[in-house]
């Protein structure tokens, strides 16, 4: 799988973590470009610096020169830095952000989940086999005593009956965009999956979409990247990326489970 140089550079030299999403490549590329700029500047200046303090030490150069450097080399360097920064900004950061972060794919072509962060768990709400997200009601969430932080209205909304709510163990199909609406219930958390190169703050009162397309089956840690209380460090979840068939099977089974456990209520 590994294009050797690219892999060596990103993972061995820069220590980037395993990459398992489509847009992540662009993130990593830009990280490489920026660090190349930094390396050029650092090495250039540092070499000059060492040479200068060595050559102009007092014992070697007892009489200082009043004027020093004439001319405008420095303007060229500063101009050069500005130009490269402008290129990275206009050529990469802005368009990529516009494309990858702020323009989510349509719901039809993606796996839609609602992500709700609360101290100290990750919760996800799936539409279930019918593909329609059921109504959520905070009063129900409160009444559930914590077992359903979304308050999915299974009693009144027929679309809600097959919905699936999971905690800390998310499952998604491979090679299909995952569109996650992220929010927080109590304090600000941050939904981060490093291998997917996503990170989105979960702000109470706001529901913000974020998305990524997993390219590798496997299991990945979900991290909380915003201090959210004393167990912030242990607010860990798991994202399991599986084949579409496996995902459908899983969803059907979970949906069935949910239907059964809530069945008595819906007949009242």
């Amino acid at each position, binding site marked *: 799988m590994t294009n050797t140089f690219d892999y060596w550079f990103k993972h061995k030299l820069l*220590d*980037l973590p*395993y990459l398992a999403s489509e847009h992540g490549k662009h*993130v*990593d590329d*830009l*990280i490489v470009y920026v*660090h190349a700029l*930094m390396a050029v500047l*650092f090495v250039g*200046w*540092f070499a000059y*610096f060492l040479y200068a*303090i060595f050559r*102009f*030490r*007092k014992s070697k*150069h007892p009489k*200082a*020169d*009043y004027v*020093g450097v004439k001319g405008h080399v420095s303007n060229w360097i*500063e101009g050069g830095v500005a130009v490269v*920064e402008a290129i990275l*900004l206009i050529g990469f*950061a*802005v368009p*990529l*952000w516009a494309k990858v972060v*702020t323009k989510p794919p349509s719901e039809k072509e993606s796996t839609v989940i609602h992500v709700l962060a609360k*101290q100290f768990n990750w919760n996800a709400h799936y539409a279930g086999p019918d593909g329609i997200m059921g109504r959520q009601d*905070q009063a129900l969430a*409160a009444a559930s*005593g*914590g077992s359903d932080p979304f308050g999915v209205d299974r009693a009144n909304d027929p679309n809600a009956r097959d919905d699936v709510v999971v905690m800390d163990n998310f499952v998604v199909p491979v090679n299909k965009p995952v569109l996650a609406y992220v929010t927080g*219930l*109590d*304090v*600000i958390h941050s939904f*981060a999956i*490093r*291998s997917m190169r996503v990170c*989105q*703050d979960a*702000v*109470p009162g*706001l529901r*913000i979409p974020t998305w990524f397309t997993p390219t*590798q*089956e496997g*299991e*990945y*840690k979900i*991290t*909380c990247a915003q*201090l959210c*209380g*004393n167990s*912030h*460090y242990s607010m860990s979840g798991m994202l399991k990326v599986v084949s579409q068939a496996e995902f459908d099977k899983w969803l059907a089974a979970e949906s069935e489970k949910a239907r059964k456990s809530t069945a008595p209520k819906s007949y009242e």
Partner: protein
Amino acid sequence: MQPTTEETQQHAAHGAHHEELGFWRKYIFSTDHKVIGIQYGLTGLLFLFFGFCLMMLMRWQIAYPGKPMPVVGEFLQKLLGDEMVNKGVMLPDLYNAFGAMHGTIMVFLAIVPVAFAAFGNFVVPLQIGAPDMAFPRVNMASYQAYFLGGVVMFFSFFIPGGAAKSGWTSYSPLATLADMGHHPNGQTFWILGMVLLITSSLLGAVNFIATIIQLRAKGMTWMRLPFFVWAQFVTAFLLLLAFPPLEAAAILQLMDNVAGTSFFLPTGLAAPGTTTPLPISGGGSPLLWQHLFWFLGHPEVYVLILPAMGIVCEIIANNTRKPIWGYKSLVYSVLCIGFLSFIVWAHHMYLTGMGTKIATFFQTTTMIISIPSVIILTCFFISLWGGSIRFTVPMLFALAFLPMFGIGGLTGLPLGFNFTDLHLHDTYYVIAHFHYVVAPGTIFGLFAGIYYWYPKATGRLMNEFWGKVHFWTSLIFMNLIFQPMFAQGMAGLGRRMYDGGVTYAGADDPAAGLVGVPQWVFGMNRHISWAAWCLGLAQIPFIINFFLSMKKGKKVTSDNPWGATTLEWQTPTPPPHGNFDKPIEVHRGPYEYSVPGHDGDFTPQTEPDKR
């Protein structure tokens, strides 16, 4: 000709005539800018050390999660109670409290007071040829407000529930909800402490600006000001205009905490860890706090760096024995930084859900602001060329500042692009970025300044050999601490992790299991911690040197031991109340070293033109 010490001692004796003050008036309630400067300096250094001690304890928990703290564990348990320490093991609440207070103390109680208030107070009036600050009593009040703020912050460790534990950024709603069981709680103390510190900074800022505008000596035109004064001038403006919004935010958060309002609490907020809605009116906005905080927060980081750049500039000119290259570009750059630093703040908030337009705006300003920093550094680098470099202790620290700030500044760039920040946000990469600028950056600048101006304040030099020991050990350990953090951050290690991140440990390939933070990162945690403790040991020579030299250091034989051009070296040593014993006049720019056709390799600003 330089006045000899004998002459100046006569002056000093003369000066002592007209005002004989008691101990209290002289040292505790002094209105003399130099005494206030030293008060600020000593208090600030104590807090710097205290903040470092908190971090040394945290580094134990990071390196050896869940193991009892050696030596101090039992003691801390007695001191802080069982909710904070259990069987000598630091508990998560204590870790978070220490983390928040490390940041707060370092920024607001250590670096700002030392870099801005201490050096500014001691040096600025001397460098512009003023007898004192414009408002000596306001100056005293400023120190007292700072001191009180420090006391409030310090005591918050010992109240039930402990000190504030929501990060130095105190994001709402966490800041309001973190410690609902106690009232008033650590967060309340934090806010009250901050209000005092902000008041102190505002008084200081007003005083500095008024002093620099009004009290420049005859002939001290704007373009003849030493760069250090310019740096302080811009810093004062940052404090003056950026701090009030945080004060406003603090007041609103205080209302949220004690009066039950919902300025930063949205509708539908649940009590922590439950699904039960809190009994609040709602309708507030958590992001509003972040905007107000970072509106201060970003200018604040330049408050931390500009004074250090000013110090470094003075010392480089003095020790290369040649004028600073590009004085004008330095001045314009620093003004430019000051201006721009007000409109980049949201680069700390890229991942709160930002649209393309606003994110582009903030990225662009962030990239633009890096240019004047590059210009300033470039001027310093070019100034080295053609110099006759003396490697005195202050110069060593000043020189080391350059690449260290360089590393810190350059690593700001990948954070400044939102698309790369996406991966790096809230990882140890950020921690490494800003520590490179504030620790081997600013702290080295402060050390340089201490070694440089020490003889002016005390009449004695600090020991050179131990100074060098202090320098080399600090340089090495600083880099051993912060360099590995870049790698850790890249690999995805989050910051503010009580267990050093082991919960998120995993394989680095899905074929090998659950993918998380790779194992080598945790080995690195231990190396870093050891380096941090060694850095602590490396400060012992400094502390001893600092205090011992007051009594035992080599006496200076001239008022101008470094052969410097600026005005502070034209005063008696130490300068008496009122500073200058004769009216002075300035005839030239600040860095006239090795002027062709002049005898000696420096021409003080006060020396009249020959012709």
